[in-house]
């Protein structure tokens, strides 16, 4: 919609030029959708010329201005973009399997993807933001340009800290998101539920089993902000009550449930028209267990044992040993 209070649109990427009444303009699909009656200037970063996707041995950098359409094309383009003398890194990254399901988790259609950006979705900070799901699940870090000309780096789950709330200071500009190769090399599992077909996510969970056996579960959409449960690799991982090693870093069913109990209080489940908190909670547990089962290493099905010894699975203290809740 028209924003009739806007007096000028300026092409700049310099946070030093920001002043109250300004908004950073990327794809525009959020600003122009909600409109504003207070903004005076739009600082347009769309012509910055930032490379949308940069592949290195260390991982993947997505510019804030990378459009969803470009991201969606990445798995195909990456596979075919073998540069002479370089290994085709993306082909060795199963984590990229998450890209398309996450894009398809947008309630917005493919037409919007031609404009909307990865950075814009993160900065909007909706609980159901699919780019939050994707980049938080893959240990993404955000590179932020500050108003004094500096740069700071924060984890995605420390950037998106509430329903529509980020940790960005006024004027700060999200420059890019980096996804480390270690996370991209992981096996992943994706689960999503919505109240309508192809609708906005009510619950979106992503699981990751890393090369080192570590297991990471990222809960988004169900909760007001992303919640990550990280289970250390097997050598330091959970053990069941009988002293038997579980499936690498992948927890037992009870261990996972206890970790969710500890990490997500009822008040953290999101409440809006896209799902009642009680449903989101139960679905979080349900999908988490599905993901756990899917990522269990082959031949390591200990469900029967853990069910018997479930009481012994609960460690003392605030959370299960070996788990660490991340996020703000």
């Amino acid at each position, binding site marked *: 919609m028209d924003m009739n*209070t806007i007096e000028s649109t300026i092409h700049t990427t310099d946070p030093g030029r920001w002043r109250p009444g300004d908004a950073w303009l990327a794809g525009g*699909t959020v600003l122009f959708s909600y409109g504003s009656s207070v903004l005076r200037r739009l600082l347009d970063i769309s012509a910055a010329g930032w490379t949308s996707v940069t592949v290195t041995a260390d991982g993947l950098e997505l510019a804030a201005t990378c459009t969803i359409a470009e991201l969606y094309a990445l798995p195909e383009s990456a596979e075919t973009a073998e540069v002479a003398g370089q290994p085709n890194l993306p082909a060795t990254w199963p984590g990229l399997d998450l890209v398309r399901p996450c894009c398809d988790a947008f309630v917005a259609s493919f037409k919007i993807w031609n404009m909307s950006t990865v950075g814009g979705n993160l900065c909007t900070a909706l609980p159901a933001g699919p780019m939050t799901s994707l980049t938080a699940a893959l240990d993404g870090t955000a590179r932020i340009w500050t108003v004094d000309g500096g740069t700071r780096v924060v984890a995605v789950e420390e950037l998106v800290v509430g329903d529509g709330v980020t940790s960005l200071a006024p004027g700060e500009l999200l420059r890019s998101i980096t996804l480390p190769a270690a996370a991209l090399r992981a096996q992943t599992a994706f689960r999503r539920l919505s109240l309508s077909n*192809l609708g906005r996510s009510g619950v979106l969970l992503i699981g990751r089993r890393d090369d080192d056996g570590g297991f990471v579960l990222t809960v988004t959409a169900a909760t007001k902000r992303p919640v990550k449960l990280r289970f250390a690799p097997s050598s330091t991982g959970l053990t069941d009550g009988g002293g038997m090693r579980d499936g690498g870093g992948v927890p037992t069913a009870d261990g996972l449930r206890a970790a969710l109990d500890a990490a997500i209080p009822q008040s953290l489940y999101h409440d809006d028209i896209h*799902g009642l908190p009680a449903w989101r909670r139960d679905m979080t547990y349900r999908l988490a267990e599905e993901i*756990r089962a899917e990522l269990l290493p082959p031949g390591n099905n200990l469900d029967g044992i853990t*069910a018997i010894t479930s009481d012994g699975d609960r460690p003392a203290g605030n959370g299960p040993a070996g788990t660490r809740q991340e996020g703000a």
Partner: protein
Amino acid sequence: MDINGSSTDAQPRPGQCLRTFLREQGNLGVKKGCDGGDCGACTVHVDGKPVHSCIYPAVRADGRQVTTVEGLATPEGLHPMQENFLAAQGFQCGFCTAGMLMTAATFDEEQKRNLPRNLKGNLCRCTGYRAIEDAVRGVCHVGGDRQQAGDNVAAPAGLGVVTGAARYTLDVPAGELPDLLHLKVLRSPHAHARILSIDAADALGVPGVQAVFTHEDAPAQCFSTAQHEGYLDDPDDTRVLDDVVRFIGQRVAAVVADSVGAAEEGVRRLRVDYQVLPAVFDPVAAMRPGAPVIHGEKDPLESRISRPEHNVVAELHSELGDVEAGLAGADFVHENTYRTQRVQHAALETHAAIAYFDAADRLVLRTSTQVPFLTRRALCRVFGLPPEEVRVICERVGGGFGGKQEMLTEDIVALAALKLKRPVQLEFTREEQFTAATTRHPFRIHVRAGARRDGTLTALSFDVVTNTGAYGNHAPGVMFHGCGESIAIYRCANKKVDAHAVYTNTVPAGAFRGYGLSQMIFAVESAMDELAAGIGMDPMEFRRRNIIAKGDVMLSTQPEPEEDVILLPGSYGLDQCIALTADALARGRERERAAGVDDPGPGWLVGEGSAVSMIDTVPPRGHFAEATVALLPDGCYQASVGTAEFGNGTTTVHAQLVATALGTTADRVLVRQSDTDVVGHDSGAFGSTGTVVAGKASLAAAEELACILLKSAAVISGADVSDCRLDSGSVGCAGVRIPLEELYRHAEAAGTPLLAQGRWGGSPRSVAFNVHGFRVAVNSGTGELRIMQSVQAADAGVVVNPMQCRGQVEGGIAQAMGAALYEDVVVGAEGAVETKIFRQYHLPTFADVPRSEVYFAKTSDELGPLGAKSMSESPFNPVAPALANAIRNATGVRFTELPLARDRIYLGLRDAGLADVGSAQQMQARDGVNVGTVGLVRAVDQIH
């Protein structure tokens, strides 16, 4: 920027979106549905890629090539997708069509294979998407060489719709109204407050602001925004601008300026001093002694409010027979409370109006309305104007669904135009549509019903409370109508209704497709299912034993039947509809079994459910239409009718009826419509009357004209009139052919134009039936609901245009599925509407709506034109209870509140102990839940 091959030097404003810029450049085919990127009606191509122009910064299109729907065709002809949409008639109101076309035109074959995904960014409120799917896939439905009644005649406006040339309310080229002003409304932040003062000085200081209007400028005359043939049907409780505001969102003041932006700035600078008053939001609480009184200063008789001191607008208390005795004599009694939510019409074209003055200095209202004549009458009453000084016109209307049977914009732009003597426009935003227009009335329905084991219905008792919001527009009518046909469809000796329509400090409810019936039928049909379950009988068999049969009197709340509702034997189609639905479900069951897809797998529960509904074909107390049909110089005809076209397809029906009577083809009938200048009066397009009232008038006019033509030809030829036959181009007179052009010339020379008038008063009336059946699968672990089969049988009498009528039924089903599954206008604890955009109000998308099987009963109604009955509101009515009954059948759980969203289904199952809660989660406590053979029951079911 290059637009459709022409470069423009015009510069967009810095915060302007591409949509409004393109419209300013004359591309009026680019529509606003939501203005927030959700509906896709504004889709255009930028450098060949489809984008939503309402969220595309206009400045960013600089140097790019933009294509709008106006640029889709080439000099060689229409784009193939435009041809497809014409062949399949992939539209009704057509407001979404430009966006659909601009999206689908970019599809490759792979994209066409996944339309749920690729069309989910294009909302259509009318069609239910089947016709759109057929269009995208290239299926042709238009046909019928005769082009008369019974044929699949294409809508006359089709070419205009697919090329973007069809004009809707605001599609006025800038040059036509060069000094147009824009009006924006300051809306109340308080649910109930007295306006102590309004300081407009700052607002008037904004460059471009021309005037500010407040309650001091408004006429004292109270009226109702609801429009009925008789204005006495609704309470006079509303002013154009009032000094008391009664809901958050009510008009406080209007700012008129040279631009929308200046008007908005003026609104922001108004300073209002309010005295906040106590407010009440729940209708039951509003009736209690001591509750805040919302219209207490009004006289009950003068304002036609039943009991203002108790916030009761209208009430109904009736008992036929002895309900307590009927319940005592029952083997099974069902008692429960059902609730329906607020839903919004969500027509893609928002409310909008332009007031201006014509060359004769007459006030002209160009508006998006279902009721141009009634709006003229209301304006004349409010502003004290004679009818000849006001003209109301609408061209094409972008969807109605009852929402435009109200005067929500016309009065305020008329006030401004009359004061300023300049044209003034008001366009609602999508947010205003949610927060400041109208919704369906929420109903709370407490049911007590009894049955004997032999299947006899012994008692039906209802305690109904409807929430009409802050104003009583349609409150009496919706309450009375809701408690009418929903109950009259059942033979039962003992029936009791206590109903109250109640004011609260919330957004007003108003007319909505079904007009009270959809709410009541949800409760009645749910209760019938429970009674059947309670006595161990198949629900449809139980209904068969208790529905009205041929010749039965239909009683709801009065001891005598409505004297002008006549169900002639040949028009009774309820039995056929039940059989058609049951047979189709059985076939579907067998089909799935044979294909091995009848078991959706572990965790899924499968069930079937149905519901029946009845509707009077015309509203009570008269519904009037006049039509004129005239012969044109070229031998074609012109039909002038009053009713508006908003996707209901009545324009096509008028052309077909006239063509049939005059022995010609529909394409030779030009229809002029919805303009107070073209006929004397028309009650309007509501109450499903487009075909059965207005069509009856146009048919009568055409039949009369046919007689005149034959007589005229007989005089010219000297043949006996009984030897004259009218065909498409001429009259055959005993071997001599007189072309129609010649008849016209003779008549013109004689000064006696060949035209005839027809009228119909809407009485006597008939009834129409709809029966819906579903087979569903419910995932007990997630609450997901899959519709495996959807069937509706409709008793539409003789179907004038099967393709269109099917579309009406499909569209009604889709809209009803939205109301049954997703849609909910949420009003917060402080009375504010929290639902403001389509992302908070899920309209069914292509991905959500299954294809429904539609069947027509073979009936003919002597009261309707050529045997036709109404079929526009009624397909909506049986859908929600059929779905609830199917879920009940699948799960054993009775859901008593809408919408039946997945989260609520899951939680209902979980609380009944029936959900698959999975191994990863411990069972929840089951607080206060009774689980029995009939599942979750909130009230008490008793076996006597």
